[in-house]
């Protein structure tokens, strides 16, 4: 984890760094180390994600229904991490495969997940310029 932290300070955080920091399991997705994460967004309200997330964000959420992936697709989210040990149903996984959005799952609760990432330099959506 120290390695990941060090890397994040210097270069941009990738989904692989996120996976390490959150000790997360990969449900869908490959080449995580080639996927840069620009910012983080923690929300259970999808309309908030649509309103506030910007292109290149990672979504942390406690919801696991297929609309989470749809939301990610519309908002150009680069990856979704389910918190507090939640596992997505099959239809969510299938949709993630079709739309090419990586899915991770961590045992950590929402607050701690966000805290770890923020503490290691991942920006919040209001701190990043862009569409």
């Amino acid at each position, binding site marked *: 984890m120290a390695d990941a932290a060090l890397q994040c300070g210097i270069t941009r955080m990738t989904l692989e760094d996120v996976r390490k920091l959150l000790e997360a399991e990969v449900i869908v997705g490959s080449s995580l180390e080639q996927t840069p994460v620009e910012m983080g967004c923690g929300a*259970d*309200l*999808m*309309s*908030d994600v*649509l*309103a506030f997330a910007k*292109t290149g964000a990672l979504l942390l*959420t406690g*919801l696991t*229904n*297929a*609309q*989470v992936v*749809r*939301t990610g*697709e*519309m*908002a*150009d989210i680069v990856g979704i991490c389910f918190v507090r040990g939640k596992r997505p149903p099959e*239809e969510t996984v299938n949709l993630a495969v079709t*739309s090419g959005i990586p899915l991770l799952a961590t045992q950590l609760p929402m607050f701690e997940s966000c805290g770890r990432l923020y503490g290691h330099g991942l920006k919040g959506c209001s701190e990043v310029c862009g*569409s």
Partner: protein
Amino acid sequence: MSDKEIEVGPEERISKTQEMVYEMKVGDVMTRKVITVHPKTFMSELREILRENRISGLPVVDDGRLVGLVSLEDFIKWLADRQDDCPIEAKMTGKLETLHEDDPLVLAVGKFEKTGLGRFPVVDRDRGRLAGILTKGDVIEGLLKKLEIDYHQEEIYRHRASHIFEDIEADRTTLLFQYDVKGQDFKQAGGSSSRLKRTLKRLGVRPDVVRRVVIASYEAEMNLVVFTEGGKILARVRPSGVLLEVEDSGPGIADIQKALQPGYSTAPDWVRELGFGAGMGLNNIQNTSDRFDIQSEPGKGTLLKVAFYPKEEHGDTG
């Protein structure tokens, strides 16, 4: 008719290669990083040089000037004759067939065929300096690469439909797409917006515009699914922007001003549990669009009209 079609296919492909052989230059496919050897190098050292670089021959160069070519064959001949060690210049081929960078590839192909040689040095037309080397392998690799690039570009061109706006001749072009949305079908919800997103991307609509359009369309689609028996999403795409029309036939919104207040919602709990229905939908649509108009009549239905323009052309908008 079908017989003829089968014949035409391969013929076309051959003529494509032939065309490439005439169009491409030696300089396009030759190897530029050439391993060379000095004329004073000893024959006994040649084996190691060939082995290390996995080559079967190389140009002999003195002060940048090409003086000959020495090959594995020359080396074997020297070995077989059991002669004493000597500088390469004594055994190399001095009279050379060379090519120039701007020679068409077809000339090189002809030369390979005529001479039976495996490689030609490519020299500078003015000063006779070595510019590269061309083997049959280089020719084949170069042709394959060009074919691959051409194929790839054609694939991209075929997939992208953005050229439609350039191909079609009119004073004004509008493409119209309709998506039918089923009510109460939460599993399929978002599917229309997803298809619209792929369509807009293929049409070459700017990514920031695509994002705003589909966020609005997705929220509107959610409203159709949650509150109505279904409806339709119409997307009008023009080079200047995208217009969305979302229409349903009921139940309608009793108080539009109230519905536009952030946080005001009449959505049932099951919708809230899925992450929607918090009274943000219409606000999101309003915020992402550049023009917003909604008309509704209880019992009759709702018509939402929104427009999106690329940012620079339309000033400052949310």
